[in-house]
């Protein structure tokens, strides 16, 4: 049992072929999940119980069950239902890629809406009152005062969630997708060299995590220039 350098050099380019799919899964579900998160947030803080209550149930269910189970329900489970097969969503839901995107977006949207809510609740009430006292409308207050401040407040949590989502994309390999993880598993099945292959792909994932964290640290620094004091 020795560490096979040649195998590593051989398999890294193969796994990097899957990085495109990993990124597609990440960016697409992040965009959709963010939009969903904002939508859920607005329902949640609408002040109308018949909008807020279903939202809370949704968030509770998606945060209370494993993402793997959610992926399986959507990919393996939904085809059991005839109305799903007859619906306009079927072209998306019959493909593993579509299912992975749907599952990851629905899941991350639930987490993100809670993160966004934390940001909104963190905005000092005095600021929205000051805007109200100037005659600025409720909607404009939300857009021009609450949102920009809330975004900065929830950036660190958002960054963590992007990393979580990136890690969850690896579960797409359980529904036959050949993302980086899927390719790594295929190579391991062929060569039976888990150490070399899995550790190589681990390094690639760590680099991506690092890049995500650096990017958000940079954004945060830029967005916080107004709190830096110049002596």
């Amino acid at each position, binding site marked *: 049992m020795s560490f096979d350098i040649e195998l590593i050099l051989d398999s890294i380019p193969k796994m990097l072929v899957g990085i495109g799919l990993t990124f597609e899964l990440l960016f697409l579900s992040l965009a959709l999940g963010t939009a969903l998160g904002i939508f859920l947030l607005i329902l949640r803080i609408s002040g109308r119980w018949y909008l807020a209550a279903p939202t809370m149930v949704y968030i509770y269910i998606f945060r209370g069950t494993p993402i793997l189970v959610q992926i399986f329900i959507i990919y393996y489970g939904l085809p059991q239902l005839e109305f799903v097969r007859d619906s306009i969503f079927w072209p998306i839901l019959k493909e593993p890629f579509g299912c992975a995107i749907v599952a990851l977006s629905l899941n991350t949207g639930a987490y993100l809406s809670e993160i966004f809510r934390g940001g909104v609740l963190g905005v*000092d009430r*005095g*600021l929205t*009152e*000051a*805007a*109200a*006292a*100037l*005659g*600025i*409308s409720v909607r*404009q207050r939300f857009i*021009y*005062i609450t949102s*920009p*401040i809330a975004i*900065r407040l929830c950036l660190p949590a958002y960054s963590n969630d992007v990393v979580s989502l990136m890690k969850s994309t690896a579960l797409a390999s359980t529904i036959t997708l050949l993302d980086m993880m899927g390719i790594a598993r295929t190579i391991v099945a062929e060569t039976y060299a888990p150490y070399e292959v899995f550790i190589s792909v681990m390094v690639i994932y760590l680099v991506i995590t690092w890049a995500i964290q650096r990017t958000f640290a940079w954004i945060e620094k830029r967005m916080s*220039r*107004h*709190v*830096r*004091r*110049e002596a």
Partner: protein
Amino acid sequence: MSKADRQLMIELENVDKFFGSFQALKGVNLTVGKGEKVVVCGPSGSGKSTLIRCINRLEQHNNGKIVVNGHELTGAVKDIDAVRREVGMVFQSFNLFPHLTVIDNLMLAPKLVRKTPKAENRKKAMRLLERVKIPEQADKWPSQLSGGQQQRVAIARALCMNPEIILFDEPTSALDPEMISEVLDVMIDLAREGMTMICVSHEMGFARSVADNVVFMDEGEIVESGPPGTFFDNPKNDRTKLFLKQILSH
């Protein structure tokens, strides 16, 4: 000014305000004429903030009548934002928008509400900053200013919508002592220019020099009110006397 030709800007009639079962205002009556300055004082928790927050409806009163510049604030108010534009407010904790520069703090409301051209808003904002004596800070962030400077920006911001009335809620209480006078000076200037003002404050010197009427509140009620001369030198109510003794001993 005689009673007859006094044009009423603010009228409160038997106003009650409840927070749950707690009554923060108990049958408050108050009138403020155009150009008049009212200073409100009283112990902490007596309902001073609640009183002025009802005037621009940051709080909704439960009973009684409030009329502000001809707008009745009772029941469902049709366009509360329109009323609020006529009433400026300055808070104890400044509440400047931290993500906007000083000048943008002043230009936001005109941009969103009046939709006037940017150049015009900017010119106006600069004029107001000159009026509060800090034009050189226009492009800084609020966090880079001292407390006194921030509060002067907040006053300028309240003025940028050309309000007919300004409400001040303890504007100098959060300031270091050496910064109080720079803010009071700006307020005295405003008073001289004929602005209608209600000011919650314990600055007795300020009250003596600008107030037409001083109001003392305790436990949600107006206990005593009158022109500063009589109020300070001949208070009638025991609670007023006690309160004045306490703040003067400081």
